[in-house]
């Protein structure tokens, strides 16, 4: 590759999550950690972290990317499908990435993991649908006949049918609409889970992992990192803390909806996009952290953890101002910006002979990531 062909470095202070772009699990080492966002005239542009570890990013059209590096078949397929998306969202990109991995473009390990995950996702969807239905039955029963849930007859299908039949006129919709809407809501909610106490849903699991990784980085840094690396650790932990507290607010907002299934159906009837957007916020907020958690967890000894921390410091997602609006929490954006560190990296660490090791690593991360 020739870095001379790169466009000028640009400052990166996104206002919205969409402007921040969505993390794309590329396997090409030079594209690792890049984000995609919509550009003018239906194009897609990529935001690449500065390969030297310095401030700023490169913003490139996909066509330009091919001028300075040779993307893998996996990445070509992925971007081809991203350009055809009607909307670039973390969920949509994840779905495409699973598809491409399941086709074998990122190797055998990722293919097997993606195929297994697709089955698991279907199970999650069925589970979310079931949980919504159960919550609806419980709410309808509690409203009409308090205490019936505990002594309920085992005929769940009949009770579900009754609940839907009872609720449809109250929302002013046919019973078929209620059944279809519950399925659609399950599709929207299964990533974050219907029950606030359940930790099985993907985004909730990510939240747990992020919390663990944050604690682990802080503990490791306390005993191992020299001054330079300790600064990176502090920055990662501080942004993780803010993200975790914002996530809690966003999760609470979604679960306030799921705690009232009748109200949720009403909201869905009035403005399904609003519910979809609300349920999608935790995904947007946590987008990019899964890759960071994987990098840290794959680094098992001090030497690899030092490298992982330096790489992570580059990838820590910037929090756009929109996060403040979503969570209703004031963020000290200036402080978070000041905290961001320049990470002095070997400029050529992702080129030359090491590319093949990094490719294998990135494909392994794909397998773990799905």
């Amino acid at each position: 590759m020739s870095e001379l062909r790169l466009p000028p470095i640009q400052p990166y202070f996104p206002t919205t999550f969409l402007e921040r772009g969505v993390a794309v699990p590329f396997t090409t080492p030079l594209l690792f950690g890049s984000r995609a966002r919509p550009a003018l005239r239906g194009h897609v542009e990529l935001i690449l972290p500065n390969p030297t570890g310095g401030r700023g990013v490169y913003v490139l059209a996909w066509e330009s990317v091919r001028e300075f590096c040779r993307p893998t078949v996996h990445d070509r397929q992925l971007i081809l499908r991203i350009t055809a998306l009607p909307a670039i969202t973390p969920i949509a990109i994840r779905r495409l990435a699973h598809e491409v991995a399941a086709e074998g473009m990122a190797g055998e390990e990722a293919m097997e993991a993606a195929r297994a995950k697709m089955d698991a996702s279907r199970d999650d969807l069925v589970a979310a649908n079931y949980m919504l239905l159960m919550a609806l039955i419980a709410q309808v029963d509690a409203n009409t006949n308090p205490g019936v849930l505990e002594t309920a007859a085992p005929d769940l299908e009949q009770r579900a049918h009754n609940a839907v039949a009872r609720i449809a006129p109250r929302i002013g919709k046919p019973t078929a609409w209620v059944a279809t809407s519950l399925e659609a809501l399950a599709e929207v909610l299964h990533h974050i889970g219907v029950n606030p106490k359940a930790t099985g849903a993907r985004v909730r699991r990510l939240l747990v992992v992020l919390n663990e990784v944050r604690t682990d980085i802080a503990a490791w840094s306390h005993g191992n990192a020299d001054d330079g690396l300790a600064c990176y650790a502090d920055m990662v932990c501080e942004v993780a803390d803010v993200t975790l507290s914002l996530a809690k607010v966003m999760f609470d907002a979604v679960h306030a909806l799921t705690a009232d299934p009748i109200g949720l159906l009403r909201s869905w009837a009035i403005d399904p996009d609003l519910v979809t957007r609300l349920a999608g916020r935790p995904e947007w907020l946590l987008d990019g952290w899964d890759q960071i958690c994987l990098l840290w967890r794959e680094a098992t000894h001090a030497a690899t953890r030092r490298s992982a921390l330096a790489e992570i410091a580059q990838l820590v997602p910037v929090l756009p101002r929109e996060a403040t609006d979503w969570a209703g929490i004031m963020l000290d954006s200036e402080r978070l910006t000041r905290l961001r560190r320049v990470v002095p990296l070997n400029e050529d660490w992702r080129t030359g002979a090491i590319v093949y090791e990094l490719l294998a690593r990135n494909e392994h991360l794909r397998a773990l990531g799905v």
Partner: protein
Amino acid sequence: MPADTPTASPTELRAVRRSLTAANDAKVLQVVAMVDDMADRGPADGLIQPLRGRLAQLRPARKLRLERLLFTPLDPLIVPARDWRPQDPTIPRNAVTPIAATVRIALGRDIRPIGALIAGKTTLDTDAAMQAGELLWPIAARVLAMAPLPLGWVEAGLKPVTYEPLARSVAAVLGRLPILMPLFQDASGGMIAPREDAIELIVAGLAGEPHLTQAMVIGLLMTRLPRVGPLLQRIESSSRSQQERVMLRRASDQAADVLLERLERDGGAESQIVNASLADAGVETRRLVMLLDELESRSGSQERRSRLKILRARLDASCRARFIGGLNEELLGPLQNLVTAVDRPMQMQLETAARQLRSLETTARQIGNAMVYDGLLRQATTTVRSVDPSALSVLRAARLVEILAGSEAAMALLEEAQ
């Protein structure tokens, strides 16, 4: 050694050594593990001596012992006893045991926490080695800075007069390891740029040290930190006094000369590539090419430049031989002799081999004829494409083609198949 421990006569040991030279890898690893387990290795240590080349290739996990903990970081400086000259900034291998024994005796009870950290650990437990090393190296440095001639020095074939300068220099290097080791670890990862402030601190601290120590530290920096040369030259030129500049220059030149000699000696450069596993061959080539670049970047005599040119040619030949060997044995051979269709584990092995070949080739073409590698890779791609799709699916073939010839070639193959 307890009185009832059976001992072997020199004749018996020679016979065992001969049979070991011809033994298979498993046997070699078994013997090495047994010797490592001995509390007092004594003459058994000599059994390992002729196996060092094969051990470098096999890279087994070795039991962490005090001696290994002390000297593994200094490995690039250790030379066979016959090649050592007292004025060289190197350590003769026969000095390792008496120096380690001195440290062990001086440590007394202080050895306990170190022993606890390395108990049951191997050289693969890098964190344990680092933690134990951080305890050991500073103490060992203090001990060796003043310890008198140890027992076993003369018996190891070393002159008493050589002890003091060598021990003091080893002490000085050990004392700097807590700062050097993280730099070396970062360098092996390749991602984090070397911390210039730390290197400057190390080099600045050399001003008051004897010449041998200076050259040893700089030699270690040159072998373990890729591209440290320009930084050393910058430090050199910004030195406070002319005397300091000359001193640094001399130390760097001597370190460079010794490193060059090591590479030239007994196929030093070749054996590190030809005997390495395919996975290590790429890493070793990268290290050696960077080292040669470093040595070349120092303005030297015409004679040195000629020697470097010869070394490059030798390294080029070794890389080509290793590449062709690896290509045939680990990629094309298995594909040409398929008994059943390629399954998932085999595909993963083939992809690993293809990546390791590309990793070796990417560096090797910098010192050799790139067209040779282009030709070999084209030939390999043709072979992959010629395998019956019932034995190697189009997707799996495309994955191999992608590694060998790039994503455009793989896309073309996939499109053809549609």
